[in-house]
């Protein structure tokens, strides 16, 4: 079954809810190696996204995701605002005009999002950022795609890989983002951005599985 416009709306709603529920947790992770705002940032951004969803019930998936991107850029701020904002903008561009997504579309969407985050943030794998959840997730997604799996299973594998990637950030020494100022002291803590990235992918997987 392809991913429908309705699925995307439910994914965004579920992400809003999950990020709201995990706001204190994300902020706590950000307290250890950052500035104690990642939870409120994501919560603020997705709450704004949520408020726009009703008016977007007729937009195609591309337009929908682009609006998510511009809304995040306009309401989040910090590092996560431009990064997640750009990710959704690019995802929207990659799915312009679409009313549903087959597995290759899903992969293209995330590939575009990843490209956006990399271009905007100039980071790469292993620097203790959201990329350390996103990159392995997309790799797992591509593997699943080459196994001809449907979107729901692709997303399920992506979420698992994102979670593993997220946990791998614990041992990393940050070289990008605010945690990099801590140098060696950044090791031993899980990256908040990698965590929110996993939460969002898990939300997608949960929606498709339901």
């Amino acid at each position, binding site marked *: 079954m392809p991913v429908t416009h309705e699925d995307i709306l439910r994914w965004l709603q579920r992400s809003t809810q999950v990020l709201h529920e995990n706001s204190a947790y994300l902020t706590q992770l950000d307290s250890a190696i*950052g500035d104690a*705002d990642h939870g*409120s940032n994501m919560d603020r951004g997705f709450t704004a996204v949520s408020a726009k969803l009703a008016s977007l019930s007729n937009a195609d998936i591309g337009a929908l995701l682009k609006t998510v991107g511009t809304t995040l850029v306009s309401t989040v701020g910090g590092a996560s605002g*431009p990064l997640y904002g750009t990710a959704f903008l690019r995802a929207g561009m990659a799915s312009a005009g679409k009313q549903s997504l087959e597995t290759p579309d899903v992969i293209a969407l995330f590939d575009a999002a990843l490209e956006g985050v990399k271009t905007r943030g100039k980071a790469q794998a292993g620097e203790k950022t959201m990329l350390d959840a996103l990159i392995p997730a997309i790799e797992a997604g591509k593997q699943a795609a080459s196994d001809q799996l449907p979107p729901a299973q692709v997303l399920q594998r992506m979420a698992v890989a994102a979670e593993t990637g997220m946990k791998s950030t614990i041992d990393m020494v940050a070289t990008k983002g*605010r945690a990099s*100022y801590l140098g060696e*002291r950044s090791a031993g803590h899980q990256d908040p951005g990698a965590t929110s990235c996993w939460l969002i992918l898990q939300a997608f997987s949960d929606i498709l599985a339901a």
Partner: protein
Amino acid sequence: MKKLINQTEDVVKEALAGMALAHADLINVDLEQQFIVRKDAPIKNKVGVISGGGSGHEPMHGGYVGYGMLDAACPGAVFTSPVPDQMLAATKAVDGGAGVLHIVKNYTGDVMNFEMAAELAAAEGIEVVSVVTNDDVAVQDSLYTAGRRGVGVTVLLEKIVGGLAETGAPLAQVAEMARQVNNQGRSMGMALTSCTVPAAGKPTFELGEDEMEIGIGIHGEPGRRRAKLASAADITETLTTPIVEDLGLKAGEQVLAMVNGMGGTPLLELYIVFNELERILKGRSISIARSLVGNYITSLEMAGCSITLVRLNDELIKYWDAPVHTPALRWGR
């Protein structure tokens, strides 16, 4: 959490409303688009100078909007970079046809959001040059990392560059002066206590009764290392030496010195630190030609201080001394 606030989500909005009321003679505050702008902006043919960053560093930046300093400031949520929309709106509001300088502190979030704003402004035909401050010697400088943070120099730069912009100097010259001040300035800070981000509701980190954090930034983040509490003399030495060495300050040179409180440290103590700083610099035959002692770039209620030194020359002194009239810094008029 003990704060003089109402709802945590209203902190920035209500503080801006209070600021607007308290300084109605100097500034306008656009509460909708969330930026603070000089009452007389835009000024025809004057380069607009704007800055911005998370809230919680007051008086920076909003307190520096006014004659001879900033044309506008964009405050984000507490410790969160503002968004491009605010910066674009502020840029348009101060553009008097001579272009706009964006003063950006080097944090991933600030840099990216200002970058997006500059792209948007360019698309609307406004010439924007961005200068990034990165003066924190606590952080190793490297091409492969996020680099050094922008801290105390930002305040001094805004004053000097604002002074030059007030003369009607062109954008390229104003930007060049900004780069020069940033190159000639270094800072380092320390904390005796953490601060509490209102939305987080509890201290960002815990510190023992006999501990301090050395090499902190301005967002309540832990520092480079934790150390045993020490005397004002030792702490001042710890902060000053890396600054002097990184700047390569030599005997006979003169500096602009700022002893900055992080928000929760009494002025009494900052003067003690200034006394130590003067002693240390005198020992190296470096003279303090100009100085600031007080809370200028803070981390909410954090106790602690930072030291900033900027190597001076006659031109920098001239624009430092030039009249300034903002809520937080005022002289000469």
